[in-house]
């Protein structure tokens, strides 16, 4: 049996477990599936007049324009909740069970993030479907939809990596929960619900350094089938770089935790 196939099975089993438990924990399901839709409803109905502002891009509908913001918000929350679930495993001692098993330590991190990836795909598909029912249209077609699913999933893994790193460094569930508001700072310093051109100059400057900026714009471009709204290449580049960096951080955090044990 190849060692790689064995680790692959471990990652799959841990991912499946992470995903199924997520659906049994209402406190993790609410923020990932319900909260972003509530915010979408408020924004799409309350600030739709923004569409008439000079400089607002020519889009199919305001709902279609802000939906990528909701999708990325979902990805952020999916990533954060995976850190919360990991901290909960550490506090309860469940993580020790995993550590006592003959598996590569990196598989424990990847298994957790595999669950995050699965969650993000389901969540994004759900958002796309609900928005479709409320009138959003996806001129980007199947390529745009699949691209958006993939982009959101890689972003969720990237955020999940940071969350996992913090959980592994601190092992504290309450600290993980207190990080929640920072998710919104990340989101609102990216052009999630307004075009970059209409952001306050300070925010617009900040947005340049926020990797989510490129992810949101890429999702917008993919769904609208209009590359001028956002470059898919820049979006995937940002998301993949974020994921690679944060997975490395999480693996280092686990190694540090074990070194100190």
């Amino acid at each position, binding site marked *: 049996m190849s060692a790689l196939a064995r680790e692959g099975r*471990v990652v799959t089993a841990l991912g499946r477990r992470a995903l199924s438990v997520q659906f049994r924990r209402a406190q993790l399901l609410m923020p990932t599936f319900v909260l972003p839709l509530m915010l979408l409803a408020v924004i799409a109905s309350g600030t739709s007049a923004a569409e008439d502002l000079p400089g607002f891009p020519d889009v199919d509908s305001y709902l279609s324009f802000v939906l990528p913001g909701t999708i990325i918000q979902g990805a952020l929350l999916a990533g954060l909740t995976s850190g919360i679930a990991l901290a909960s495993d550490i506090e309860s001692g*469940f993580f020790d069970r995993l*550590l006592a098993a*003959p598996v590569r330590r990196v598989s424990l991190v990847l298994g957790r993030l595999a669950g995050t990836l699965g969650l993000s795909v389901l969540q994004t598909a759900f958002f796309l479907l609900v928005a479709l029912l409320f009138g959003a249209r996806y001129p980007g077609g199947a390529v745009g939809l699949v691209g958006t699913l993939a982009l959101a999933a890689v972003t969720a893994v990237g955020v999940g990596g940071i969350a996992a790193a913090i959980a592994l460094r601190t092992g504290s569930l309450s600290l993980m929960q207190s990080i929640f508001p920072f998710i919104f700072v990340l989101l609102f310093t990216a052009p999630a619900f307004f075009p970059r051109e209409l952001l306050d100059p300070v925010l617009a400057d900040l947005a340049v350094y926020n990797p989510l900026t490129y992810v949101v714009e890429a999702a917008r471009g993919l769904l609208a089938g209009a590359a001028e709204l956002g470059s898919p290449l820049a979006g995937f580049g940002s998301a993949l770089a974020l994921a690679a960096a944060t997975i490395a951080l999480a693996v280092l955090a686990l190694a540090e935790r074990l070194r100190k044990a």
Partner: protein
Amino acid sequence: MPPLDAAAPAVEVRGLVREFKGVIRAVDGLDLELSAGEIYGFLGPNGAGKTTLVRILTTLLRPTSGYARVAGFDVVSEADRVRRSIGVALQEAAIDPLMTGRELLRMQGALHGLRGAEAKRRASGLLERVGLTDAADRRVGGYSGGMRRRLDLALALVHRPDVLFLDEPTTGLDPTSRAALWREVRALNDEGTTVFLTTQYLEEAEQLADRVGIIAAGRLEAEGTPDALKARVGEPRLIVTIDDPADAGDAREALATLGEIEAADPAAPCRLVLLTGGGKEAIPPAIRALDARSVAVELVEVESPTLDDVFAAVTGSRLEGASKPEATAA
């Protein structure tokens, strides 16, 4: 997995020290050796260092100094090989209450390299073995304490380990659940599994362990078979209570043929104490001797030293909730 070399120790610990924050010595220079196939009971109160030792032996903690080998492998430099050889049931059964018993077993199977169909078969077999088939597809959050411990034991057995570590496996369980778990541990040991068990229950150590180690403040204070340990602190005493204090003289003469008799207690003239090398074997000859002198006997009992007496003798304190001296009444 090849069975352990019977000649090699299943667990070998030399000069093991574990400090926390550079000050607290939870494990303080332990030496220990377990033969393959034995049940070793590690007895001590809360905070004695039992769990710290188990966590080191199961690769979850690193020793500060000294070394430990399990199944022939070093717990630090060959941690992965140790993990392949051991089954671990940790204190406070670390199982996710949102998962079902079957899901947990299948996940544990995957962690130990079993493929889907194999993991599924193994899960079903183990669920049956620990009597959880009917509860297999219920979430563990709804299990009783005994069911959780049985599931935890099943989880530790998924990969048929050579050495099984059970950290206080029956703490908080009712007597029936405790007895069921003991039966299962004995059965596993009969199949050849070496068992390292920590406990704060004297009865558990006595019932299960081939050898007992007594730990206090991180040090191994005494070690041996339960009988050998008890023999160190004194021999069994035969306590005879007669009906009529007027027969006390006859009774003393009758019993004097069987062994040394302790000085009479004026406050209890009907009570005679005979020091006997044997245990309950001394009861029939004592009764026959008393009967020959027509001494009416109310009660004969054997009072043996207990592991708690041993514990008290070597540590100077008694285990919380320890039972009174054992008595075999006739």
